[in-house]
């Protein structure tokens, strides 16, 4: 289980230094938060982590087991790190029973489930000690009730990321394509995919189309948005989450392109309908698939597991209307009925200080959530070791929100993959599938 050299060596150094400084409570070392002396009581925090081979998971373990407890010796602190799929059902049950944890980090597409149902405490700028303008506007939308443009915040973004296009240069060369010229539009991507499949034995594009799976729309929606489609009005600067756009032409066009790649060109792996992102990653690692869209953390894994795979990265392709990508990331939420809000805030402050925000953000394969952390020296240092980090920064402005309503999970995990599968399996035409999805969403929003 090799971990990149930087993380281990420098992490240990930093931890030693940080713990010492934290104890003195001095802000002198740039990037660390000052310890508030009077934090006592009990605090339970839940977090989630990526699969073990992602470097920087060490940073997380270190933060929760050494650094933060070291900062506040009088605090009875306990934290649990879950797998990504375990955390959501557990948190749902726990908070509906008004039980711990006091503080939880959730993926951005889960936030509205808790924010919209009034289970989170509000957080003000004074309490947090960090000006809200530091955060991305899209990220802030995700922690306001029902994705409103203004109003109190019910959570704080911890890190943000976007996906980008990853491709295998060797396969490109084998197929006669220029390895330094990745596809720039979605149509080009489909064409390249066909060429690759025809000329080599590999599949061109690795598609995720599994049902009941959040990965699937993460790859589909950028295409839909690029063609001018939308779920609601999330592309507007002030989305209302009322106008349903899912039946429109952009979505239909995207579905048609998916259909072309999967059914007509057959340039996509045949198991797409039961593949989620981990399956596609496996295929990419073994050179069976030439292109895939994935999180920034994946290239780090590739480097570890298959160092001789020559990777190329590119911004997500554009469409006729725009270039877009899902704004991903995570948010911290404090339980509304918590008894130790000061401690929870202290944890957030420590987590969000530029030094840790950069390390933990990049460690999770994304970026820190604050402008300060993204501009910090720490970030610059980390970025040097991380493949394609600059691409992520470049893609951030194109981020578009997931549906920020409480029915969001159902729409994201159920409706959209269902729509895609209807088309891929040949049961419906793109137009029919999109119309069916639109009426489903309408029904959902009516309750």
């Amino acid at each position, binding site marked *: 289980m090799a971990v990149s050299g930087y993380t281990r060596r420098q992490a240990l150094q930093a931890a030693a230094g940080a713990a010492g400084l934290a104890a003195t409570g001095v802000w002198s070392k740039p990037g660390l938060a000052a310890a508030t002396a009077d934090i006592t009581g009990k605090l339970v925090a839940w977090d989630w982590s990526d699969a073990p081979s992602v470097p920087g998971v060490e940073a997380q373990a270190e933060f929760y087991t050494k650094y933060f407890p070291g900062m506040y010796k009088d605090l009875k602190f306990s934290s649990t790190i879950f797998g990504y799929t375990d955390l959501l059902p557990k948190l749902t049950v726990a908070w509906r029973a008004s039980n711990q944890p006091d503080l939880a980090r959730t993926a951005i597409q889960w936030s509205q489930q808790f924010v919209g149902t009034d289970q989170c405490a509000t957080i003000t700028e004074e309490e947090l000690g960090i000006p809200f303008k530091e955060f991305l506007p899209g990220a802030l939308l995700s922690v306001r009730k*029902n994705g409103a443009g203004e109003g109190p915040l019910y959570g704080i973004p911890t890190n943000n990321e976007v996906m980008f296009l990853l491709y295998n240069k060797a396969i490109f060369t084998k197929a006669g394509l220029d390895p330094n010229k990745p596809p720039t539009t979605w149509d080009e991507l489909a064409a390249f995919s066909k060429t690759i499949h025809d000329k080599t034995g590999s599949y061109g594009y690795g598609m995720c189309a599994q*049902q009941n799976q959040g990965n699937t729309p993460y790859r589909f929606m950028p295409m839909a948005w690029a063609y001018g489609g939308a779920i609601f009005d999330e592309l507007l600067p002030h989305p209302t989450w009322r106008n349903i756009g899912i039946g429109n032409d952009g979505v239909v066009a995207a579905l048609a392109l998916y259909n072309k790649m999967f059914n007509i060109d057959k340039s996509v792996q045949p198991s797409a309908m039961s593949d989620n992102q981990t399956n596609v990653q496996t295929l990419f690692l073994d050179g069976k698939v030439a292109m895939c869209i994935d999180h920034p953390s994946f290239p780090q894994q590739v480097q570890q597991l298959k160092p001789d795979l020559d990777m190329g990265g590119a911004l997500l392709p554009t469409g006729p209307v725009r270039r877009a990508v899902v704004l991903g990331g995570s948010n911290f939420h404090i339980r509304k009925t918590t008894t130790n809000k000061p401690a929870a805030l202290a944890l957030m402050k420590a987590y969000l200080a530029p030094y840790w925000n950069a390390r933990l953000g990049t460690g999770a394969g994304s970026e820190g959530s604050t402008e300060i952390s993204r501009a910090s020296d720490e970030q610059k240092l980390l970025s040097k070791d991380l493949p394609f980090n600059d691409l992520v920064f470049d893609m951030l402005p194109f981020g578009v929100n997931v549906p920020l309503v409480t029915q969001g999970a159902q729409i994201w995990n159920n409706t959209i993959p269902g729509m895609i599968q209807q088309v891929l399996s040949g049961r419906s035409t793109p137009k029919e599938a999109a119309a069916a999805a639109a009426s489903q969403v309408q029904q959902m929003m009516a309750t």
Partner: protein
Amino acid sequence: MTEQVGAASARAVWRERLAGIPYVLPAVLVIVAVMSYPFAYSIYLSFQGTPSYTTETHFTGLANYAVVLHDSVFLHSLITTVTWTIGCTIVDIVFGMGAAIIVNGLRWFRGPIRAALMLPYIVGYVIASYAWLWLYQAEYGLLNQVLTSWNIISEPVSLLSSLTWALPAVMLVNIWKTMPFAMIMFLAGLQAIPEQTVMAAELDGASPMRIFFEIKLPYLRRVLVITSTLLTFQNFNTFTIPYIMTSGGPLNETEIVSNYIYNLAFTNLNFGGAAAASVIVMIGLMAFAVVYVGSLSRRQPGVV
């Protein structure tokens, strides 16, 4: 005299009637203590509306039931579940019986072979799911590697993506896991058949098939009833296999009722609907149990 005896025996009967209670009490207490609140809560919740935008509930009467019964996904999952249950149970019984007969007839290595055949049941659902997931894997799984290297198919096939093959594929995993249970029950049944009867028939010159169907099978009736009932209920309520292997896809083809209820509760946040669906399932199973077990025990008294 008779009155005294009458009174004494009446008291004796009364005491007899009460005597059984302490034996049964711990079990009943445990179940009542643990399950009565959840049970009551579920029934209560099934009559409550649980909109996704709040944690409060309000009384909506039978609305949840109506919504669930009109949901094509629910109905589809019911059909899938019934197919799953009947298919798996029948195959379990048939092949379990076959295995039992063969094992019963073995002279050597009976112990180890029996143990080996029991392995799938012993290791549990979680491991079964992952083992077969790995096996069915489109590009690296054993199935595809064998099929392509023997040139049966030219390109790897992904069973779990196919609308027609996903359900049978997942059912196969369940069968793999539960068949040993049937086997072991039948094996025990076979070994309990009195030797003399069988030997007498053999001496009379009856063929093995006739011996099986006319001599052995009637003895096995009781085991058949018990096993098939247990298997039916266990198969109906499976959750883990589709959850881990396909998440219910593709296009709900492998979504059985327990997955549907889980999604309804945790993705759609419709806890009231999930409760209603559970109650519907429970009523259905109860009806089935009463009819099925009742009819069978009528034919042979004392079975249950």
